[in-house]
């Protein structure tokens, strides 16, 4: 799976399972749009669980940091790094 496909997978999860139809606008949640302030601690944990289950990775607690969850691109880069 390439980076664009990972970004699309994360985006679909956020739209369908976290923000629901609030973000159904085709232009919403672009890879570099900020997610800061949109996710609470439970939301972050759901994103982490999704990434671990969908991409077969383990994200260490020490990597669950703001800089890795600021945008969809940052999340995709974290996933790619864990896959290596």
């Amino acid at each position: 799976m390439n980076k664009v496909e990972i970004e699309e997978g994360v985006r679909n999860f956020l739209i369908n399972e976290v923000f629901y139809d609030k973000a159904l606008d085709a232009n919403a949640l672009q890879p570099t749009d900020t997610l800061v302030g949109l996710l609470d601690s439970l939301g972050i944990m759901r994103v982490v669980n999704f990434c671990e289950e969908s991409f077969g990775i383990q994200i260490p607690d020490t990597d669950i940091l703001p800089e890795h969850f600021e945008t969809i691109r940052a999340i995709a880069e974290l996933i790619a790094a864990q896959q290596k």
Partner: protein
Amino acid sequence: MSVLPDLVRRAAERWPDHPAIAMDGRTFTYAELEATSNRIASTLRARGVRLGDRVMLWLPKSPEAIAALYGVMKTGAAYVSVDPSAPAQRACYIARDCAAAALITVPARAAQLDKEFAGEAPMRSVLYAEPAAESPPIAQAPVISWAEIQAAASGAIESGATARNLAYILYTSGSTGQPKGVMISHSASLSFVEWAGDKFGVSHEDRLSNHAGFHFDLSTFDLYAGARAGATVYPVSSRIAPFPAALAKQWKEQQITVCYATPSTFILLMGRGNLAEHGIPSMRVLLFAGEVFAVKHLRQLMDILPQARFANLYGPTETNVCTWYEVKEQPADDAPIPIGRECENCQGFILDESLKLLPDGEVGELWIGGGTLMEGYWGREDLTARTLRPIGTGNGKTQLAYKTGDLVRRFPDGNLRFFGRRDHQIKTRGYRVELGEIEATLSRHQAVEEAVVVAVPDDQFGHLLHAVVVRKPQASVEEAALKGFLMEALPVYMVPEHIEFRAELPHTYSDKIDREALLRQVMAAASPSSR
């Protein structure tokens, strides 16, 4: 002290150069906080804000936001702080409900507010409490930029406020489908702040973490007990708050000494934040409230921070903190820890349904009287009359008291223990939630015939919410669309984790919805053995 802004004025006189607020590498000294809040007060006053008005704040945490809280109170008005992550629909409902004279926000919120107010802002002016290049208009209300505020006079203005005037209104979940505003006077807030500051020995050398939002009553300890002592308050930004590892690291770097948060916060810090590794040797007081702290997690926390004092503070928003229990030793068994004894400025009464005092040892409803009580609910005289009323306290005496809805029992050692709720109010992530408000919102959806929300107990978050919905005949709506509908109106912590559709709901013999049966069914379906 008679009003909350006196705390900052006095701290600015005694410790002008001491940091009052430190956040994201920026610091406001007490002198700067005093001057900036005076400028905000002068700006508001020039726009007609006066004693008895309400000013709403809808903005992320920042040093400017804290200056704005004081600035509002310095005009004699009460501040109404709204959850920065709440949907615009809810924020605008609150602005209209409290008839806000002014709104303090940030330019990034302008488009949402403009759309929601539909061209007609209910307030006289909008202030932007953030240095920004642009100050976009909101629904034709006059807009004042941060640069204009900075140019205002920095001297104090006369507010005319006394201890009995309102300091702030905190909106909490309401069972009838809309949030309700709890009115707190300067006197009630100071009664709690002075008790807590003395009890936990907060001094100007302390560094207090502020985790709770300013719409949440836990924040009043951080802000005002901190200012009373001339201590430094470290607000946790929304960028850091959801990340336990980042928060634990930040606490260590900031050498936090006092922290007041929900058990959920501490559990996440231990579970995902490597708190044990960071240690936080500076921490000396750890206070928690808002929900029951599962003993197995509390023991773990006491192991990690053996040097700290631990106390369970109890009290609905309507009473501030009214009972407390210091956990001096690790609990021997897994029974929930007590909510403790009354604070010296409060009195607790355990009554039966006919409002008769019950003898010690019997379970009854807790009513609270004393100096920390709210003034009532904003614009809800009916509800105020039902929940805040004189009760007989023995020997022919009566006292004004608040009906908490909490069932408690006093044990022989004098401590009160919590035994559950009389109604459908629950706690999730420390927030108090009326299940009826979520059900009422769900019922407003055109495809929903009937909806019930049950709260599934959860060690980490207090409760997780599960909605069961019956659709109208021939109507079609899916879970995602219904959650999206809820997110337009409710804060994210009130949106159920799961929405399940059924053809009908279980009913009791008297034809009421059988909530207990429903909860049992939901819990059984969720248990690992049923998968």
